[in-house]
């Protein structure tokens, strides 16, 4: 299973801090597309992805146990 974390406006839309899904074997892009369709996520083309706390490209393949986070454009500072 994979923990998928949401932040900022995505957390508000999904209504959860995280969900558990089985995404092993899928690419980051495939998972993002599924989540976008399921939760009607806005502006996903601007959203980066982290895998195990490091930015991951869209073609990266997810393994069982990987922690995924959707990272909207950051606004710290």
């Amino acid at each position, binding site marked *: 299973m994979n923990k998928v*974390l949401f*932040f*900022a*406006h995505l*957390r*508000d839309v999904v209504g959860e801090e995280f969900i558990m899904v089985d995404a092993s074997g899928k690419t*980051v*892009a495939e998972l993002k597309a599924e989540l976008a369709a399921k939760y009607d996520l806005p*502006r996903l*083309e*601007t*959203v*980066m*992805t*982290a895998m195990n*706390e*490091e*930015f*991951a*490209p*869209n073609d990266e393949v997810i393994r069982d146990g990987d922690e995924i*986070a959707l*990272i*909207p*454009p*950051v*606004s*710290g*500072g």
Partner: protein
Amino acid sequence: MTFYEISKEPINIQAVIDKVVRREAGAITTFIGTVRELTGGKKTLFLEYQAYEAMAVKKLAQIGAEIEQRWSGAKAAITHRIGRLDITDVAVVIAVSTPHRADAYEANRYAIERIKEIVPIWKKEHWENGEEWVGNQLETAAYPSGKPEAGDFDE
């Protein structure tokens, strides 16, 4: 000592500075980011900061490592606060020490710009008539490859 922190409590500015005090340093610059009341003529009531804490600490440490590599003899300490912050509250403190002053100014500026680029922290503006998550100054940036590009560094 922890040089890179996400804090739910008010930041002790002096404690951040003290982390970079070293005998070989001739300069320490401190950046203090505070909550501004007016943005584009709109009055902010308060801000709410959220972080992907584990990754944010790693990315702050990455910025510190980049600084040590780019400016010889530099040492950085960064603490970013999260949660609800009122106007004038301190959101982030960056202290950088270097042997000579020019590098301390440059490296400190580099740190805040990198924070705005790669550290997973978000702020929500609360106004009298609404609220909104702020994303990279008006959602202008897209990340076609899924992560920041090498050139994504202007503010």
